[in-house]
């Protein structure tokens, strides 16, 4: 039995409506408790310190085929000399470095948003090798021939729900994501674009239909995280209209639009590229059941990696350095890896940067918007402290805007936005809100019985970026893993999953399909809990689902 007492800290615990309140926190056996009967084994003096639950990144590409392709493609960038042991680049770190950097910033749970069911073993194996953090994945559906065929032949929603629930179980995932609904599949049949209401050549169904059916499945199965949607037309000027149409496709059901910055573009002005953050955030602010993460762009070298092979093939002409890879994957989905450098001399890149910030600042409710760079697509997750400073410090933000190599002041309202995020809002968007939207009842708060994941920041570090980059203490599952900024102990987190129920008759249908068309058997497609813990190397934690019905 290990006990820890965090004493005299200023606590931010949005779930319990505690904001900047001096309060002691107690931990026993890996969980928060209201009090301890005896003196704690370990007392951490949190005077002049801020105490928050461990941070949660709900959209970060940290494990799977495309991540590893990027690592192997971009070896010349693995020369990060300010790190001791592991020189891999911040935008494609090794698994070890991923864990070290996340925990070093006080993040204790991270979610891979594009886990191909056919590639699930690799994704989980990689993530199992990331130390410290809990992790999870969103299974990619909506471009798999099996589902598209079901929709195309007008299968009943209940059959689709069963399939979705089976995939969640088989691939050990916590949510469902759709990327360019139907578009990746259509690219395999040589379609080069697919708008929201355009029918694919092969299946004669629209992205709207796919999003609708999947949003409904996720809702009816009671999966806490709404359908995670990478919209059609990523990066295309004027795409904000198709983003709004995609939101409408959910017909009021919960929907999460990911890296919304890349989908908030107008096509006004001389350059036919403009910000549509106002239109998008207006929608975000008024539509219930709609959440988003931003996918903020940061200047510098990175690599874009996506299941969206249709878009990535188009984007390869912008590769920097000039190399790239696109792949069609197992009648399941695809992937594209294109290195890219965001330059502040570029009008488009500078405006992308501003659009992301506008989106953050115009969104009224910190529970509906999440802090991401779509690592590494907009920039590495290591830039979060810098991003937080941009949100919290208007002067800093305005200075950077003024210092951009290209003047975009005519094209952005950023300078006119006075808002500065508060610490409470940062705590909400990085802790309580992601826990809530993922259905992680044991994360994101300091409530009694919740997993003792905690981050302590030192307010004596006057620069807010410095403070968020270097927490003094991080506790994961009740174990002090970072002390005075140094790694103290290595531990391994769990894989967070959900297990909605399904009618077992779907297994028979899928078995038949696999035998006839796939190149592995269904039984080997399914990853069991035992395999996760004994072979892949990560125990699973099952989160609750509550079945719902649309009246």
């Amino acid at each position: 039995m290990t006990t820890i007492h965090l004493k005299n800290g200023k606590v931010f615990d949005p779930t319990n409506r505690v904001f900047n309140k001096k309060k002691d926190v107690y931990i026993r056996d890996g969980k928060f408790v209201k009090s301890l009967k005896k003196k704690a084994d370990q007392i951490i003096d949190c005077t002049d310190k801020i105490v928050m639950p461990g941070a949660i990144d709900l959209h970060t590409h940290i494990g799977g085929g495309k991540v590893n392709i990027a690592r192997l493609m971009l070896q010349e960038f693995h020369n990060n000399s300010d790190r001791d042991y592991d020189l891999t680049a911040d935008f494609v770190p090794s698994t070890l470095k991923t864990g070290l950097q996340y925990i070093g910033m006080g993040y204790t749970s991270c979610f891979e948003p594009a886990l191909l069911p056919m590639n699930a073993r690799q994704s989980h194996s990689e993530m199992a090798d990331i130390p410290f953090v809990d992790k999870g994945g969103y299974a990619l559906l909506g471009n798999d021939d099996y589902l598209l065929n079901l929709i195309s032949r007008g299968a009943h929603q209940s059959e689709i729900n069963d399939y979705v629930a089976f995939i969640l179980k088989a691939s050990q995932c916590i949510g469902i994501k759709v990327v360019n609904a139907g578009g990746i599949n259509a690219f395999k049949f040589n379609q080069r674009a697919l708008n929201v209401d355009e029918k694919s050549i092969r299946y004669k169904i629209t992205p709207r239909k796919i999003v609708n059916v999947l949003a409904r499945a996720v809702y009816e199965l009671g999966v806490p995280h709404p359908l995670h949607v990478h919209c059609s037309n990523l990066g295309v000027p004027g795409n904000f209209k198709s983003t709004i149409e995609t939101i409408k496709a959910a017909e009021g059901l919960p929907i999460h639009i990911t890296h919304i910055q890349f989908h908030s573009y107008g096509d006004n002005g001389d350059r036919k590229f403009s910000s549509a953050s106002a239109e998008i955030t207006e929608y975000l602010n008024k539509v219930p059941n709609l959440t988003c993460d931003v996918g903020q762009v940061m200047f510098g070298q990175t690599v874009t990696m996506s299941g969206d092979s249709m878009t990535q093939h188009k984007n390869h002409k912008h590769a920097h350095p000039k190399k790239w890879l696109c792949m069609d994957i197992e009648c399941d989905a695809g992937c594209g890896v294109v290195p890219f450098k965001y330059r502040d001399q570029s009008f488009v890149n500078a405006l992308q940067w501003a659009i992301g910030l506008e989106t953050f600042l115009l969104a009224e409710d910190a529970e509906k918007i999440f802090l991401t760079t779509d690592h590494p697509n907009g920039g590495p997750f290591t830039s979060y402290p810098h991003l937080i400073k941009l949100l919290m410090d208007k002067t800093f933000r305005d200075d950077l805007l003024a210092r951009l190599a290209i003047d975009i002041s005519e094209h952005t309202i950023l300078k006119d936005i006075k808002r500065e995020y508060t610490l409470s809002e940062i705590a909400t968007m990085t802790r309580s809100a992601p826990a809530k939207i993922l259905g992680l009842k044991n994360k994101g708060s300091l409530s009694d019985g919740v997993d003792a994941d905690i981050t302590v920041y030192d307010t004596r570090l006057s620069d807010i970026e410095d403070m968020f980059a270097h927490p003094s203490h991080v506790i994961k599952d009740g174990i002090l893993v970072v002390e005075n900024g140094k790694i103290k102990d290595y531990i391994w987190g769990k894989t967070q999953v959900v297990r909605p129920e399904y009618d077992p008759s779907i297994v028979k249908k899928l078995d038949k399909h696999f035998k006839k068309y796939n190149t592995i058997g269904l039984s080997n497609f399914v990853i069991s809990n035992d395999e996760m813990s004994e072979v892949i190397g990560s125990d699973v934690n099952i989160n609750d689902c509550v079945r719902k019905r649309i009246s």
Partner: protein
Amino acid sequence: MSKISDSINYKNIACPFCSLHCDDIELDINDNKIHIKSDISASCKEKFEKNNSQTVNKVSPTVNGKASNFSNALKKAKQIVKNSNESVIMNASSDVNIAREMLTTSSKINGIYDHVNSATFLKNLSIFQRKGFMCTSLSEIKNKSDVIVLFSNSILKKYPRLTTRILAPENSFSINPKKKQIYIIGNKKNNIKDSSIKDSRITYIDFNNKDIPKLLDSLINKVNESRLSNKIFNNLAKSIDGSKYLSMIWATSEFMKYDTCDEIINNISDYVLSINETSRAACLTLAGNEGDASSVQTSGWLTGFPSRIKFTGDYFEYDRDLYNAESLIESNNIDLVIYINAISNKELSLNKKNKNIVIGHPSTKFNIEPHVFLPCGIPGIDYKGLIFRTDNVVTLPLSSIKIPTYRSVQEILRGITS
């Protein structure tokens, strides 16, 4: 825990031996012996069933070629490792979990991690490390590819079920499988001999694959300057021009003997890229049967690099020339090689000028006796594991189907470094 006398039936077992890793094997275990029930090729069957022989199950560890017990051999191995100044940990065939352990070992002993097939797979990686690459995977080829070009001299022998399971299947859902056109280009005699089926969809073309660049130029320019007859060339060109999803498949290992190797793989890739400007096409490079894909992927996520990694204690670094184990061994720049051979039947070529420790399955062959040989179990036969398929996308679970006679590689490596 099952007893040796138990009789157990297993279905859907993944084969660890060739990188297709077909997972539809049915087998019985009686008296701890494997009896294949599926209708698979004799060569695949033999790889499983040879593990039944008494000889295979009574292999002793050796020290300097003489039989020893495990603890003595382990002790000797520990001593050799301790006295080594510069060691190589050579992956001669493993699954993911063994590769994980090998990298941990390399880090513990400050060694160099490399794979026996590095020279080949680094050429494949170099395609997308220098320019664009469009690739595909087995199920896409099976279901979507209407025209397939396989460059092969002996691929069908190395991957015995490639034709029936992938290239010329009975069922495909996006196209009419009967209308698939499959061109197998290379040593026609070998290819016909190695193909287990007669299939009207397959056209065997006799061709010296050294001249693939000329063939591709001819296809691009639509002027036959290859050595093919005009009739054969025109048929091939017509099929490709009319294809909706062309797959071009090869194993770079087959081209290593040609001075045009780099040119061949780059030209195929460029040709496929050009087709994608207006239609769809993709490449598939077949990985070797020595767990190449598992090694590359595991090393990739743990270090960022595919192989040839030197661990120093303070950091690790990659240099495809400096840490080329083969060159280091040949030039006597290392004093110890630890070979791990958990799966492959390929003979290990040991150099007598350095110390050699071999941790290998009991049928492992070598040209000279290693200083220490420690027999190990096979993932997929004796131990559970994970292995990447040839397309680097799908990872198959490997089962423990027998009660193991030997320790796992992981246990032995931990013993050496403990």
